[in-house]
């Protein structure tokens, strides 16, 4: 048994999600991403004296929606606390957060059949952003932009129920899908609207206690979450195997070197001196509000996945891929409900469509093709107006322009050639100009036939009806 097999990892995730409200959590400043520095600030989020923060009701509703979708128990009574620490990204020297009375607790997410428990979900405000003037050793300054200070965050903390790096990634993906489905966050890791820190320790299999853990930061992608955990687990095991002890510390993932490095030396004991924020009144959530919020929650990914399998008869794998993103799932749903063979729709989406999205880096919202367009394309193919090969060409155009397939076919003259006379004319030409190949074929070389078909397709710009080309060739070559 190898070293790795004698150990297991214990992983917990802390996820921060920016809630997609128009304004900040405690003031009316806009939350738009990418504004000029310090142009989305006001006395409240700058922490000027004498101001009074007031909770954005939409923030509460979004957080409640998330709490219910994540199967949490919502607290009837919760409140905001001040988390005190001096740091320049924090204009007030405290962050408004929730401490001992969080909005929700004890939820779970179903990940590949395992239940990953959620310890708590609470609201807090985001901090500002620090930048450096130059990067030389002589630079003594940092620049602060408070546009992000006060942007609403939901912090979602899992129990240490995750056992492998791939499970951590799957948990994150599920979480992201759920939050996107319920429309509370766009969850863009690259814009920081979804951020993740991980806690990880290892222990010998069969043990129930926990080993000393480290916290990993600077995880800017799902891949980084997975790879950093893989590295860190191996590192901790080798430390233990060497008879040493894991040091409890915060480590950063170094993306370019693919290793984790200590972020700072000895940990200062945290002493945030939490206390209730006297500027904000408590939040009381009654059953009527919860019932109202529950109605806002649409069909969630796992339910949709089951329905796709049941209703459309597509494989579980397809259903998983298609429901990972709500827009993609809705696209499929619309096509599949009006086309005779849902699996064909699934193939097009998982093939051409996803390939295009990955290659261009465009989001599904940015790709102009519509469900109606795809269904029309499939019908054109079924009716024999275009060949399968041409259908792909047309779809490529649709992905770029969103134009209707019938328009593209008309404009570019892509209608399939099914006219027998026209096909025979080309076939005769190809036979005449490839006497050697014809001889090979007649001599028993089956492969030569494919070449001749290819020549006919080439001569017709891929528009010839393949079945008819086959038949015509066989007939002319006396095989029919």
């Amino acid at each position, binding site marked *: 048994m190898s070293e790795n097999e004698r150990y297991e990892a214990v992983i917990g995730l802390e996820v921060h999600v920016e809630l997609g409200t128009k304004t900040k959590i405690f003031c009316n400043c*806009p939350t738009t991403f990418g504004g000029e520095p310090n142009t989305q600030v006001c006395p409240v989020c700058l922490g000027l004296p004498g101001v009074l923060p007031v909770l954005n009701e939409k923030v509460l509703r979004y957080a409640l929606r998330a709490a219910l979708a994540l199967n949490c128990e919502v607290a009837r009574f919760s409140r905001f606390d001040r988390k005190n620490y001096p740091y320049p990204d924090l204009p007030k020297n405290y962050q408004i957060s929730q401490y001992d009375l969080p909005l929700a607790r004890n939820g779970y997410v179903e990940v590949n059949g395992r239940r990953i428990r959620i310890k708590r979900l609470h609201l807090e405000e985001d901090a500002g952003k620090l930048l450096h003037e130059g990067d030389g050793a002589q630079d003594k300054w940092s620049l602060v932009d408070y546009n992000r200070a006060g942007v609403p965050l939901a912090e979602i903390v899992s129990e240490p129920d995750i056992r492998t790096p791939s499970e951590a990634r799957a948990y994150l993906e599920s979480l992201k899908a759920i939050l996107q489905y319920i429309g509370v966050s766009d969850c863009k890791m690259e814009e920081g609207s979804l951020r993740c820190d991980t806690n990880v320790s290892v222990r010998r299999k069969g043990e129930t206690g926990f080993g000393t853990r480290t916290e990993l930061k600077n995880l800017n992608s799902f891949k980084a979450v997975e790879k950093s955990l893989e590295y860190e687990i191996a590192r901790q095991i080798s430390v233990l195997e060497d008879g040493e002890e894991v040091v409890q510390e915060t480590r950063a993932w170094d993306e370019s070197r693919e290793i984790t490095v200590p972020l700072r030396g000895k940990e200062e004991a945290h002493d945030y001196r939490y206390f209730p924020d006297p500027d904000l*009144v408590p939040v009381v959530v009654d059953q009527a509000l919860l019932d109202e919020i529950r109605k806002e929650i649409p069909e969630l990914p796992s339910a949709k996945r089951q329905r796709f399998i049941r209703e459309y008869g597509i494989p579980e794998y397809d259903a998983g891929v298609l429901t990972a993103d709500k827009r993609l799932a809705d696209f499929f749903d619309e096509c599949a409900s009006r086309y005779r063979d849902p699996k064909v729709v699934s193939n097009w989406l998982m093939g051409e469509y996803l390939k295009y999205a990955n290659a261009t880096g465009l989001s599904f919202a940015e790709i102009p093709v519509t469900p109606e367009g795809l269904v029309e394309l499939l019908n054109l193919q079924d009716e024999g107006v275009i060949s399968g090969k041409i259908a792909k060409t047309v779809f490529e155009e649709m992905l770029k322009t969103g134009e209707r397939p019938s328009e593209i076919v008309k404009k570019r003259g892509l209608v399939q050639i099914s006219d027998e006379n026209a096909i025979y004319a080309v076939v005769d030409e190809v036979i005449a100009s490839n006497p050697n190949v014809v001889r090979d074929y007649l001599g028993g070389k089956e492969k030569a036939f494919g070449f001749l078909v290819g020549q006919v397709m080439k001569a017709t710009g891929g528009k010839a009806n393949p079945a008819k080309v086959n038949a015509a060739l066989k007939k002319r070559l006396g095989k029919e």
Partner: protein
Amino acid sequence: MSITEETVRHVAWLARLGLSDEEVEIFTGQLGRILGYVAKLDELDTTAVTPTFHVLDMYNVFREDEPRPGLPRDEALANAPDASLGFFRVPRIIKSGAPAGSPTAEEMSRTSSRTGASPTGPKSGARTGPGGDES
């Protein structure tokens, strides 16, 4: 209720106050007397009293999610001790000389639980904020 000098130094550090040894001694005595006075309340039997979670008897005060312009940038920066290029400018709080492009402590700490956020010890009379090295 007695307060130790160690407690006073720790609290002063948390508040980024630089205290002299004499001041530590003075405040140790004063804080001890204040807490001793308030400790009188411990004599009350509060077992049957509901805990006060908030001083105001109010809850659920909300705001509509409607954007409104805040301060013009010039005004936002007007009282800043230092500003540059539309940013507030502060003393750098991480160790300089990290390789270009490598993540900084701030960038990492911004994600969350603020474990990355506690700067090291105070400077004497440091009213300009933390000046210690982060790593």
